[in-house]
């Protein structure tokens, strides 16, 4: 009981510290939201002193001293009211986030899961067929592909498949004429738009899962219970999947939890290259525009989802590993 309390206490403490960090980090950045807004405007032409004043009034100098702001922020966190975004003034943060979230969750989330599943299966295969081409191909291919810079892969795919051969759309999350909603045209279009970003993430993340699974699987293949299962003449498939792979997957779950938690953060580089209206892109905008309200909401969401994902993985761990039950 004491242990569990301690654990929960530590979790809350971590959450609090992360939230606090999320408050102070943006404020460490030099320049104010007004400066950022002016900087953006000034790219279009001269910004007069009057404009600067108007924007200052509009975005408002945050009320009170840092402590008051911090308390205000904590209140926002608890009530989930983050106010109005500076960058996308006067759009409420909640609206922006809820618009962007589904795309990221579906694209990055789905791809992360697919990459984990495929990578794990390939890793199992590689370890099982160790020393054959079924091992060499995914391991080497995977490690090469995972060394590609994300954005580079994205750019090449975009250029060749998007612009030169015009097979896939070049930006956005769905066709310009579609109205988001549960209609076939939109969903089809959204699927087509997701292909290139998805392939990019898949290519660059698959390798890690393959290697991770292969290595743990090779370790479990040497474990006594695997030898004993073989000695009992179990079918190779059973030995590979129910004995070796089933145990090997456990340590990989931790990484999967972290990766899943990272999903909400989106894939900044990929979303940037493909102009994909997800959280990653929003985040980059928020940070470069010093959009405190938006940044705070996003950071909070990301932090909580990482913690949550880890928590879920802990639970999953318990389900999958009877040793941790009880």
């Amino acid at each position, binding site marked *: 009981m004491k242990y569990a309390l301690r654990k929960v206490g530590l979790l809350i403490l971590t959450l609090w510290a992360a939230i606090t960090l999320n408050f102070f980090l943006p404020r460490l*950045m*030099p*320049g*104010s*939201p007004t*400066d*950022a*807004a*002016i*900087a*953006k*405007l*000034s*790219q*279009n*032409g*001269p910004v*007069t*002193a*009057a*404009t*600067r*004043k*108007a*924007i200052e*009034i*509009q975005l408002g100098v945050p009320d009170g001293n840092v402590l008051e702001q911090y308390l205000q922020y904590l209140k926002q966190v608890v009530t989930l009211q983050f106010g*109005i975004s500076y*960058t*996308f*003034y*006067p*759009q409420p943060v909640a609206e*922006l986030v809820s*618009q*962007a979230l589904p795309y990221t969750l579906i694209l990055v989330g789905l791809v992360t899961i697919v990459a984990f599943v495929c990578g794990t299966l390939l890793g199992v295969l590689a370890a099982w067929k160790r020393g054959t081409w079924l091992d060499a191909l995914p391991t080497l291919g995977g490690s090469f592909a995972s060394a590609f810079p994300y954005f580079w892969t994205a750019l090449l795919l975009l*250029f060749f498949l998007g*612009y*030169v051969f015009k097979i896939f759309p*070049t*930006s*956005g*999350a*769905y*066709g*310009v*004429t*579609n*109205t*988001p909603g549960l209609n076939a045209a939109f969903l089809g279009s959204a699927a087509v738009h997701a292909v290139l970003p998805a392939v990019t993430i898949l290519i660059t993340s698959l390798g890690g899962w393959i290697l991770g699974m292969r290595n743990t699987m090779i370790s479990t293949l040497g474990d006594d219970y695997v030898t004993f299962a073989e000695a009992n003449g179990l079918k190779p498939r059973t030995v590979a999947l129910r004995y070796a792979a089933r145990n090997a997957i456990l340590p990989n779950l931790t990484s999967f939890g972290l990766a899943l938690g990272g999903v909400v953060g989106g894939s900044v580089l990929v*979303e940037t290259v493909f*102009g*994909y*209206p997800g959280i990653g*892109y*929003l985040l980059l*905008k928020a940070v*470069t*525009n*010093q959009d405190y309200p938006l940044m705070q909401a996003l950071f909070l969401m990301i932090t909580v989802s990482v913690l949550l994902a880890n928590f879920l993985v802990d639970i999953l761990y318990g389900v999958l590993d009877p040793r941790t039950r009880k």
Partner: protein
Amino acid sequence: SIDIKSAPDPSLGADTLLIAADTGSPSMQRVFNPYLPNTRIGSWNMFEPLAILNDLTGEDVPWLASKTTIPDPQTVVFTIRQGVKWSDGQAFTPADVAFTFDLLKKNPSLDLKGAWQYMKSVEVKGDDVVVHLNGDDVPAAQVIEQTQIVPEHIWSKVKDPTTFTNPDPVGTGPYTLGNFTPQEYAMDKNKLYWQADKVEAEHLVYPASNTQLDVVTKGYDWGFSFITDVKGTWEKANPSNTYWFPPGGTISLFPNLTEKPFDDVNFRKGLSYALDRKAVGDAAAEGYMEQAGQTGMLLPNQDALLNPAIPDKGLITQNDKTAASYFAKAGYTTKNGKLVGSDGKPLTITITTANGYTDWLRAVQSITKQWAAVGITVKVAQPQPAAYQLALRNGDFQLAMGSVGGTGSVYQDFANNLSSEFYAPIGKQASGNFGRYKSSEVDALLTRFKSTTDEQEQKQLGYQLQQIYYDELPSIGLYYGGSWGLFSTQKFTGWPSAKDPYTSPKTYVSTALLILTHLKKSEATK
């Protein structure tokens, strides 16, 4: 290399303009409140000003006000145009104008142009709207006239105009909002428009994504974007593609005039003579922009306003010897190839530029090399844009890159840079005059500028300001920042060009109205 071809999007009709202007990041919000910095570009096509200040020529084009008169330096009278209708059919009246000014007064955050900085009160007199100014302030008319007018019958019901997104805009302009999605919106011709006969494009389409690749490949008709190797890409992609890059401002170096040795005009002259401005401009804009003179004027746009007494149109040719002599006057001599001050320390200068402004960075790199040749070590500081702005405002720099001029108003251009009205001590935030220039002579000239309605006198005052600018180098002009106009003549002709420079190619200010009312269907489309 791979050739990229462009063809008009077949899904768009021949009467539709595809415009690369409104970049949504990551997608577009439906904001058509013209007083918010985040308003969609399309609101410029719906909310018209009283008059358009043509920033290229400096002329005022009467618009919703059919006439602007300045009976005395403290009063501006706008005669409101008759027969104008809001796009919902209601009549446009002087009351709408008065309501708009009132709205800006009540909500100063909406007053982006700062009209109420100059205004005392507004009254409606028949068809006229009379604006009383705070004092003598003739140039203020050019600011006030730019105010975009909104309908009273709609905006008077808005609870909080400062956060009002105006999703279903009603304006007087040539277009109304059509289909809107976060990735693209369309505008349709306003059938009730007061000069409907001049508007030939039936629809406008603004996609959210306008990367250079998009602009070149997707059959755009109008774009405002710098493109690498515009001839080899944009022009090559389609035979009807043209471009025009008139100057839109002077990219300059702001010396921090409160700091040694930048407070010494001889030192500034030395720096200036040590610059090969052509090379700097070439590096920054791949040879598409001209070097700038030291008059503060944008040439050839403002040729007519240029002080003829200034030699060579204010252009300064690089001359390391002259530079050295000025440096010597400022107490700097060359030792072992380094410029050394009287204290015996070699000179190191930091240039501050904004991170991500790559053209500026290229320019700075070029300057670094040139000044290295005269023995100056240059360090480059590249804070993020917001931090760069902060540095400018606080005067926390030695030399900073920045843009000067381009408002179309000679008074505004000089006042923003030189007026002690904007002076703030180092560490205090300034909103203009970042170099902290202080000159009673200039202040006097600006004051006189405010109180004269005589165009000739204004011109003369302009000459004097140019002369001072030339002699004192409060900022060092480098090259012109471009207005990057890309046009396709496939569907429409009549785009502004070097031959017909009737306005700048900008898509995002009221001057766009000048273009939209100027376009003619091309032979092919007719």
